[in-house]
């Protein structure tokens, strides 16, 4: 899917938009710094270094993409994650790599002028801007459980999404509804994809997503003007192509059968596999295992906490407690104990059935013998 970011040089909208290179120049950065930035971006987007030329070319010629960042039914944790991106620095991204026109959390402006600016931006760059959405839509009672600027968020979203060139759903809320969509879901929370028309949404799930993944995805769209390669769930393949389990540095402990059985045992202390403590690594697709968090410092499993699968759809209702592999039902034990119990009961059951069958057969034989006897006597006479 190609999206054209047209540089408007004349006509009605006379505004010339900066390129990334021009933004660097304006801030007094050297060419060397610019190229270093491009190298960082290339590797961050999961591209091979062969692509560096194209990245530099795009950064020199393409005008900075206009980004509108909307917040819905959520906790702004994704933004908190985003501003901790280290390579590129979130500040660099916001100030020199994109033209961020609207963001509830990062904007100094507020109130009516701010909302008016959104309207102007939508009009001016209709069909060109990137829409980044954080947070689910609330749908119950016409969406009144999530209001922004006096209007239901779902209405705002539909309005802005119409003119978007690309839509990015940041976080598990925007992608799948988020933890507020957990049963019974009183606010009717849902992912945004059904509320933006037929446009393809780039899902960047995670609660929150990894900062560098967030910046990587928006830069990919910004520089190349097209969506990154997506999987069947709309997630960028370069970040969500593998299970955490398959990239986890603790995987050798799993293969060797070395598990932490409790949170306080020797295995947990030694850093063995957390599978038995309910780790969702085997079911979760994310880059935690290879990119890790905070400049590669750590990620939940490395810190001794089993993965809860926060990048999965419905991870909040995944069937089992986060620290268990198998679900339990109230006071009942897990299915292995129930199954073994049922198997034992079935053995008792068939034994009883067998005993009754013997009795039944015995009586049948007796009745048959009597009948035959009767017949023989008749024949004898």
């Amino acid at each position: 899917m190609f999206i054209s970011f047209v540089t408007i040089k004349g006509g009605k909208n006379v505004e010339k938009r900066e390129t990334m290179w021009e933004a660097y120049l304006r801030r007094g950065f050297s060419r060397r710094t610019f190229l270093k930035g491009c190298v960082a971006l290339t590797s961050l987007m999961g591209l091979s270094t062969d692509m560096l030329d194209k990245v530099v070319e795009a950064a020199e010629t393409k005008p900075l993409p206009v980004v509108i960042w909307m917040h819905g039914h959520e906790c702004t944790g994704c933004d908190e994650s985003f501003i901790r991106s280290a390579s590129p620095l979130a500040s660099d991204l916001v100030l020199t790599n994109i033209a961020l026109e609207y963001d509830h959390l990062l904007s100094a402006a507020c109130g009516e002028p701010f909302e008016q600016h959104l309207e102007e931006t939508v009009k001016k760059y209709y069909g060109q801007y990137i829409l980044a959405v954080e947070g689910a839509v609330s749908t119950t009672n016409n969406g009144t459980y999530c209001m922004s600027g006096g209007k239901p968020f779902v209405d705002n979203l539909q309005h802005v999404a119409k003119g978007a060139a690309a839509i990015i759903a940041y976080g598990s809320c925007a992608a799948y509804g988020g933890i507020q969509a957990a049963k019974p879901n009183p606010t009717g929370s849902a992912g945004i994809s059904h509320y933006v028309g037929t446009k393809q949404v780039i899902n960047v799930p995670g609660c929150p997503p990894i900062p560098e993944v967030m910046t990587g995805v928006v830069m990919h769209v910004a520089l190349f003007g097209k969506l990154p390669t997506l999987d069947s769930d709309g997630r960028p393949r370069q970040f969500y192509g593998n299970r955490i389990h398959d990239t986890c540095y603790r995987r050798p402990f799993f293969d060797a059968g070395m598990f932490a059985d409790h949170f306080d045992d020797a295995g947990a202390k030694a850093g063995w596999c957390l599978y038995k403590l309910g780790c969702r690594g085997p079911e979760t697709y994310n880059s935690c295992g290879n990119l890790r968090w905070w400049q590669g410092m750590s990620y939940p499993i490395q810190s001794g906490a089993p993965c809860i699968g926060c990048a999965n759809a419905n991870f909040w209702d995944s069937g089992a407690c986060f620290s268990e592999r198998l679900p339990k039902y109230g006071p009942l034990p897990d299915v292995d104990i129930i199954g073994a119990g049922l198997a034992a009961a079935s053995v008792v059951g068939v034994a009883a059935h067998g005993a009754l069958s013997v009795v039944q057969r015995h009586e049948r034989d007796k009745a048959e013998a009597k009948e035959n006897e009767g017949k023989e006597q008749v024949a004898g006479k």
Partner: protein
Amino acid sequence: MKAVQRKMFYLFSPFLRIFHWIMVDAIIVMFVTGILIAKPPEINALEPAQSMLLVNIIRQIHFLAAFGFCASFVFRVYGFIINKGDRLFPRFWEGHFYSETVDVALHYMFLRKAHKSYLRNPLARMSYFGLYVLVLIEVLTGFAMYNMSEPNAIGGLMFGWVNTVLGGEMMTHIVHHFTAWAIVLFASGHLYMVTRAEFMEGESEVSSMFSGSKILAHDPLDAKELE
């Protein structure tokens, strides 16, 4: 004692029998290894830290048994094609199937003294259909988990939808595990019923799975179907 006249009916091709016994072995292997994978036993860490339980090898055995089992289904289908005695599914579309099933069920509930004689016990056939459904669930969920280590490869594209349908890959794990227990319950019932039929009713349910033939004292109702 009166001499009983018995007749032999050739029913099961060697291909069906091979498939049956591969299935038995594979299910036993897969159940044991599956439980070990889902719940690896505690190793109570000692120094030097090591485990006798190599989950990787256990998983490979599980996968090997799974592939062997799926491949052996070829035997079953081939037998079905060349031999009239092999049947894949009960004949749901024939009305008498239902009345016969009720006949057998009433007997097993001790509400009837005996059931009529059949080459293919309709109630058993029904339970095998149930087993096929369970096995199908195991195969689909199993491959859905197995192939998703490379979601964009052909296997991931063929089976990835199962995870979506079930509402997440964790659910796939849980469904796979629960269904395994259902198969165990089927097996305990099956084992009892065939033993009972063999030794109490003279229906040669066990021996026919070795020899392929049933030796019956009565003329079975469905004997014509073999012709």
